[in-house]
């Protein structure tokens, strides 16, 4: 069902995929922000489960994690929020970003079943690399959930092809570092996108360090089918929301931030 949503979405054209953390800044508002992002033109959503030790994330997403955990969102609550997001954003593929221990704790099969029933399309566990991914891949396949592998600027060609095999798409980190951090110019990132798009026979998703429409257009031009904007939007949430009274301002501000990424105006 939900994997079909991914295929249908990619047939319609390249997708801008805002990242949002379940429970950030509050459980209800994270559902509201998901709906807002889709109304503002997001073709896909990247959904994070808050985890106490997000070692692959930079400061902005760490802060989002902290807000979500402080607001009481952990895995079980996250499942519920995911279900609500899937209901209010029907037809929009949802890619989950989940640290391995959260999946391991619940059990790979049970986790995959639960999120598939909740409406997720695909799952990426950033700290379960290719060598250790077989049990997770099996669990995803059994549940009808797509599995996504992470690739980096230094991932060699043959390894890239192994990563891509059986992946719903390859999630390419544009920069060598944690999320939200940029080293060097964007031209090298674009060359890398083209290289990966040509060698992998699955769609390429570009993430890490993307914050503008210009970058997104150039990434699509280079062959990416999905562009994820994470830290940029997580930072916006942190800036726009400090107290319940800020809810309206947050939703409006978030809407314009996503619109700036999805439209050429």
């Amino acid at each position: 069902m939900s994997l079909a949503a991914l295929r249908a979405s990619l047939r319609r054209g390249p997708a801008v995929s805002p990242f949002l953390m379940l429970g950030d800044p509050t459980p209800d508002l994270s559902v509201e922000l998901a709906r807002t992002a889709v109304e503002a033109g997001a073709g896909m959503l990247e959904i994070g489960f808050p985890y106490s030790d997000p070692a692959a994330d930079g400061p902005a997403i760490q802060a989002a994690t902290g807000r979500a955990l402080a607001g009481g969102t952990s895995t079980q609550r996250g499942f519920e929020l995911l279900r609500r997001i899937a209901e209010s954003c029907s037809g929009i593929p949802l890619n989950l970003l989940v640290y391995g221990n959260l999946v391991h704790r619940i059990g790979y099969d049970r986790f995959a079943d639960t999120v598939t029933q909740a409406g997720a399309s695909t799952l990426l566990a950033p700290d379960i690399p290719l060598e250790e991914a077989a049990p997770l891949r099996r669990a995803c396949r059994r549940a009808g959930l797509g599995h996504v592998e992470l690739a980096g600027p230094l991932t060699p060609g043959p390894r890239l092809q192994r990563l891509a095999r059986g992946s719903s798409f390859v999630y390419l980190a544009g920069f060598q570092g944690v999320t939200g951090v940029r080293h060097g110019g964007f031209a090298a990132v674009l060359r890398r996108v083209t290289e990966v798009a040509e060698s992998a026979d699955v769609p390429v998703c570009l993430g890490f360090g993307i914050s503008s429409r210009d970058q997104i257009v150039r990434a699509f031009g280079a062959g990416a089918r999905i562009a994820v904007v994470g830290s940029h939007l997580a930072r916006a949430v942190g800036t726009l929301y400090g107290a319940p009274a800020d809810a309206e301002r947050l939703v409006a501000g978030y809407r314009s931030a996503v619109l700036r990424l999805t439209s050429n105006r």
Partner: protein
Amino acid sequence: MKSSLRPRRGAFGSFGGRFAPELLTPALEELETARREIVPTKAFRDELDREARAWVGRPTPLTSAPRFSARAGLETVFKREDLLHGGAHKANNVLGQALLARHMGKSRLIAETGAGQHGTATAMIAARFGMQAVIYMGEKDMERQAPNVKRMELCGAEVIPVTAGARTLKDAINEALRDWTASLSTTHYLLGTAAGPHPFPRLVRDFQAVIGREAKRQWRREFGGLPDVVVACVGGGSNAIGIFHAFVPEQSVRLVGVEPGGAGLDSGRHGATLVRGTPGLLHGARTMILQDDEGQILEPHSISAGLDYPGVGPEHAHLQETGRASYVAATDEEALAAFEVLSATEGIVPAFEPSHALAFVLRARESGELPAGSRVLLNLCGRGDKDLETYFALGRSS
């Protein structure tokens, strides 16, 4: 379930592996290649031995402890890693890894530290080798261990406060991993314990295994045969795996690791990951960890900052699962009492970490945890100077 989760790279039974982001794979592969190709060479071994003697202060003696033994009712002998440069076994590992980093052409070392012992050891070796050192330390730990921060800075290291998460050791490891992801071409991550993604648990064990090799040889020469029991404290577990390793094949030798029981196992405020934890993925390995029902990592508690870690080296989890080693806990209170006993009976002021191992030996005969007549080899892995301030602040009258 267990077999399907068996890690593929660097497994210890169903534990270990390499659960680290793809972006770290190139660095971990490079390190694994160096471990296989550089460490076994004669040139590397010779240099390591030379520096271990001249700079670290190896070999360390075995010390009989008749008055402590009388108190415990068990004959106890100490392996004196407290006499190493820097005052702890940490020097064995930093020397080996820094030497390897130099062979790999890395000019910058990064490290995490909790109590500041590993950070200090890293700062010292970086100064000796003329390398840059950056130490990540939880903001909370920097306040608790201010003198060690000064010591690291004195040796030329930059100490970066970690303000994320709980602002302690586990967060410092996260931050070091983040740095390494971006800096791997120039930087070696000098992990301080036998944990982390493959190849770290083996790399650190192999540099610490000198403790057990030496002790086994010395015991044969001085006492004949083998000890009945080898005891060590376990936080991440590097001193314990260091002394256990040579004895693992000797089935007659019991191996006992002592974890921090903090305020008591039932209080929930402890760091006893093997005794009370559950399997999970933390800092690159499948191992025993302290976590809640949903997989969030819990903050451990111990009087000893060096044992205050919610995970443990995966090889210990394996030794526990196979029954080759057993793991117990000693509380803060027991450790403090043992700290006092050793100081008063033998004139050795131990660190709070090995005080947990001492506490186990002191109670083991009465509790029946060890049979009468057992001859015990205990890894006295650090000296207590660093803990004096904390100890006196407690206002105990011994």
